[in-house]
């Protein structure tokens, strides 16, 4: 039995992907801009939801009473500003989502109702995100087995965060309203590697529609992780496919540690109520530690802060790293000895939300300038025994008090083990507490929009025009274009099949394949900025190649030169290409070569030329130019042609 089976790992994915169409509830283009903007500021208040309660995550946010500043870019209209009701839903976005549903084998609902999902972190000017559940069911295959899809939703993207701090946040409104699908799977994934494979397979399927946006920020993956005895934890915004297995493993280990802590607390007979009772026993240690040599504590004191301490009965050894013992290699128990801290970071995360930069707990002291004598003094003042832990917080009185309450609340939760919550990934693939798991109470109907019928005709139309999936594409590329299996695989799965298909309409598919898979990377190896080599630019290059303006062998060099020219002026690939050809000397053909071509053509039509004399110049220009196109000037050819005819007649 593998380790993942032993710990009962369950992973589900939630994938958000922007659609390649205008905004969902207005006619603005879905473009991000870095241009100038003007700003306005707003506040949000939570509303009573449909079921009469205010969602937990929403009220948590409201307690912060934040001011939100919005950057209004020139591309937005009043809808993004929440100064105008939503326009009827973008029908193309609905069709793309239906297409995705059919590809997944999901069943569309008969009537789509958009809901308001309360989000009051400011990222939506309305205070809610509009989202509609479009289809249920379906699946995607991974090498480790099928992963069922639970729901497919169509929703509007939120505004882009620019900066945020404790009391304010600034958002840019260019992104708000871009349509995106939200695709959630069942927790059918049982290994970290399978999570990556499922995300990849879903990403490939979405791309096959050619109607999803590509590039940074257009795709977001949330990963839901639990192990047996743990709880579902949502890890938000995992950007990189390759980090998914690492994050999943790290989260499984974290949950394992927390379950261990809970068991230990149970053994020690610690109850939640006992921990919470410490809210009345927060001790002000400001006077006692006024001469501390700890820089962290001193800094707080210098800023008129206070130092608070609280005892945590029976928590000794449950906050820091676990020492001693003899872990069994390969067994989950060994995770307890991997050097990671137990409860400390969890408690600190909750305190940080209240505005402190960190805290000290008993398992890590003495350290950070806090002396053994000071630790003993604090233990004495807090009446700690050998079995008890304690936490110190230093900040301005308001923040320190709020943070200490959060410390105690989080410590009490430790009795239950893993807490269902939303976390964000950190660069080292660990995660940090973000907010409580939002409840179901956060949705109510978007009354400004009518329900939309998804009838059988519409479904039939979608079915009749389903895009080709990646597997089928590979087979077709091999049979239709004679590509090797390897090239076809590479084009479809790891390169740019869109570019290949677009260029192959007008150019030899094999040449296009070499261009995309070899020549472009050769140019990149030479240091060229191959971002310039878009489909349009390569079309210009391949057209020139088709016209024999240069030889195939010259293409990598042409691409290098072209990219360099386009570094200076990226707007005109045609001109850049001409300049490159000139510079590389590909156009120089000397007079004797031209005369040779002329003479060949003259010989073929000797009778005609003798009969017509100078009148033969016109008819002869075509074939001669055809052979020399791009390599010699037309005037020059005409002049030499005239000369040779006069010599002949």
């Amino acid at each position, binding site marked *: 039995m593998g380790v993942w089976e032993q710990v009962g790992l369950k992973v589900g994915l939630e994938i958000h992907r922007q659609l390649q169409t205008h905004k969902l509830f207005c006619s603005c283009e879905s473009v991000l801009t870095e241009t100038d903007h003007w700003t*306005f500021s707003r506040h949000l208040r939570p509303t009573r939801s449909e*079921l009469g309660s205010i969602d937990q995550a929403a009220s948590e946010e409201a307690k912060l009473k934040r001011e939100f500043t919005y950057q209004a870019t020139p591309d937005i209209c*009043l809808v993004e500003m929440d100064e105008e009701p939503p326009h009827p839903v973008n029908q193309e976005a609905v069709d793309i989502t239906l297409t995705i549903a059919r590809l997944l084998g999901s069943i569309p609902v008969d009537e789509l109702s958009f*809901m308001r999902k309360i989000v009051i972190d400011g990222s939506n000017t309305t205070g*809610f995100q509009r989202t509609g*559940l479009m289809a249920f069911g379906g699946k995607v295959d991974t090498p480790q087995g099928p992963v069922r899809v639970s729901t497919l939703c169509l929703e509007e993207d939120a505004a882009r965060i620019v900066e945020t701090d404790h009391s304010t946040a600034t958002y840019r409104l260019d992104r708000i309203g871009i349509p995106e699908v939200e695709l959630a799977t069942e927790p059918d994934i049982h290994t970290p590697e399978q999570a990556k494979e499922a995300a990849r397979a879903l990403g490939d399927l979405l791309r096959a529609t050619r109607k999803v946006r590509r590039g940074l920020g257009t795709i977001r993956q949330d990963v839901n992780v639990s192990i047996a005895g743990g709880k579902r934890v949502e890890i938000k915004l995992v950007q990189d496919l390759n980090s998914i297995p690492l994050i999943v493993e790290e989260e499984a280990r974290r949950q394992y540690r927390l379950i261990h802590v809970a068991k230990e607390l149970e053994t020690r007979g610690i109850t939640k109520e006992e921990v919470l009772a410490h809210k009345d026993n927060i001790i002000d240690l400001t006077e006692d530690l006024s001469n501390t040599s700890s820089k962290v504590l001193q800094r707080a004191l210098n800023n008129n802060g206070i130092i608070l301490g609280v005892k945590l009965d029976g928590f000794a050894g449950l906050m820091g790293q676990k020492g001693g013992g003899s872990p069994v290699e390969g067994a989950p128990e060994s995770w307890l000895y991997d050097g990671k801290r137990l409860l400390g970071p969890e408690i600190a995360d909750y305190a940080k939300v209240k505005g402190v930069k960190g805290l000290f707990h008993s398992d890590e002291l003495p350290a950070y300038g806090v002396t053994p004598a000071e630790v003993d003094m604090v233990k004495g003042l807090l009446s700690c025994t050998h079995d008890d832990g304690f936490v110190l917080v230093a900040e301005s009185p308001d923040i320190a008090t709020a943070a200490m309450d959060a410390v105690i609340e989080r410590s009490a939760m430790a009795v239950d083990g893993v807490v269902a919550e939303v976390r964000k990934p950190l660069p080292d693939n660990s995660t940090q507490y973000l907010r409580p798991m939002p409840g179901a109470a956060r949705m109510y109907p978007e009354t400004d929009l009518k329900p939309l019928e998804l009838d059988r005709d519409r479904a039939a139309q979608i079915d009749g025009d389903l895009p080709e999936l990646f597997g089928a594409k590979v087979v077709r590329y091999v049979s239709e274009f004679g590509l090797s299996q390897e090239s076809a695989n590479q084009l479809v799965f790891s390169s740019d099949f869109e570019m290949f298909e677009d260029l192959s309409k007008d150019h030899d598919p094999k040449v296009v394949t070499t261009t995309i898979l070899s020549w472009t990377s050769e140019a990149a190896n030479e240091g060229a900025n191959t971002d310039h080599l878009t489909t349009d630019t390569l079309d210009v290059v391949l057209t020139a190649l088709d016209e024999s303006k240069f030889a195939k062998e010259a293409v990598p060099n042409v691409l290098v030169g072209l990219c360099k020219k386009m570094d200076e002026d990226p707007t005109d690939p045609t001109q850049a290409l001409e300049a490159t050809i000139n510079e590389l000397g590909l156009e120089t053909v000397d007079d004797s070569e031209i005369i040779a071509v002329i003479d060949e053509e003259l010989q073929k039509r000797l009778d005609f030329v003798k009969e017509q004399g100078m009148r033969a110049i016109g008819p002869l220009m075509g074939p001669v130019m055809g052979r020399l196109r791009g390599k010699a000037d037309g005037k020059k050819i005409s002049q030499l042609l005239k000369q040779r005819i006069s010599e002949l007649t």
Partner: protein
Amino acid sequence: MDRLTLLQSATAEEGDRIRLKTKGLHNTQGWDLEGILMPHHEFSGDNVITVKLDNGYNVGIDVSDGAELEIVEKAKDPPGREASEWETDTTLDKITIISTGGTIASYVDYRTGAVNPALTAEDLVFNYPELNSMCQVDARILMSRLSEDIRPEDWMTMANEVVAAFKSGSKGVIIAHGTDTLGYTAAALSFVLDVPGPVVLVGSQRSSDRPSSDAAHNLLSATRFALEGTPGVYVVMHGETGDGPCDVMVGTKVRKMHSSRRDAFRAINSMPIATVTKDALTWIDKPNTASAEPKVIGSFEPAVDIVYAHPALDPERLKANLAGLKGCIIAGTGLGHLGTQHLKVIEDSIASGTFFCMTTQCIHGRVNMNVYSSGRDLEAIGVIPLEDMLTETALVKLMWALTSSTGTKEIMTTGLKGELAKRTLPASYPDKGAGGED
């Protein structure tokens, strides 16, 4: 199967937890859904049942091809609100908040999915707890009307309520009102009321069921002005698209200038007299109004209309529309003009006793009927130019003037409540902004 038959045979009602088994339109395997039965939307398909699932989403499933529906659990009463008890600080001034309906005093009816104008006085304090630290709240529901349904007799009901509120010791009165006709009501109350303190009309442009609603900011700012403002009728609404200070505008000089923006209300041919937030009132041009015994003066003649001058206006149709009117405002083109082909119709109507005034459909600016002959001709037959008065204000004032024993012309041409200004300041006409205020 017919939706209603299905629901009736299962005795399912909105709010019940139901289990629905049906094929719907697309599901050959058949749905097996459990959730809360939602109300039928007026734009939903006839046989579509909307179910709220446990994940919060509503989905519509068609039951035309047959369905099984069973009730899992009957609807529970909506969870009771936390006891709406609050302690009143009796040292604070009393402010009366009269709710007439509209977005500001509305909530989403989750059973019908609509924004409904109905809110109890307790709801107001429950929703805007800050009120309680500003004043003693005396809230009452006078009516629950969308503002497009407000009628002239409702103005009288409001006016009487305002007088009663001042007589019962309120320092100021706030009227929560739908925004569509809020300007008309503000003008009407301006003429019909003498008051000892501020009467503040306030609304909201974005429904109060959304976290971004302007309702709280407008209402709390209005409360500040009701506590510290001058006697008279005013409108307090967002001064910009952001939640910056609200504008305080004179009730006869204010117009809804945008269908949806928060800062839709603008002082026309004038400037806001102050800006105000929950915490502070900043005067721009403090009115010199005197405190008066609260009373209602006069009433409103409903047989009036506005004629909007336009190229396709037909003299015969115009004539028919004018029949039986006691008074009429011509919203003229430009400086106050109406096509010459209508001169005879107007002249006849005046002869039959209809009183005519001229305003401009340009909204901004002043009528001047001396510049072109069409204006001179209209004035010659007895059409009274109303300077810089807003068309809507002119209509309301005419309704009021027609019930007075004083001469209608004298009342209409005399500035009473700030509705007529002799000077138009250049700054009163908005600059063309690139998009927003920065």
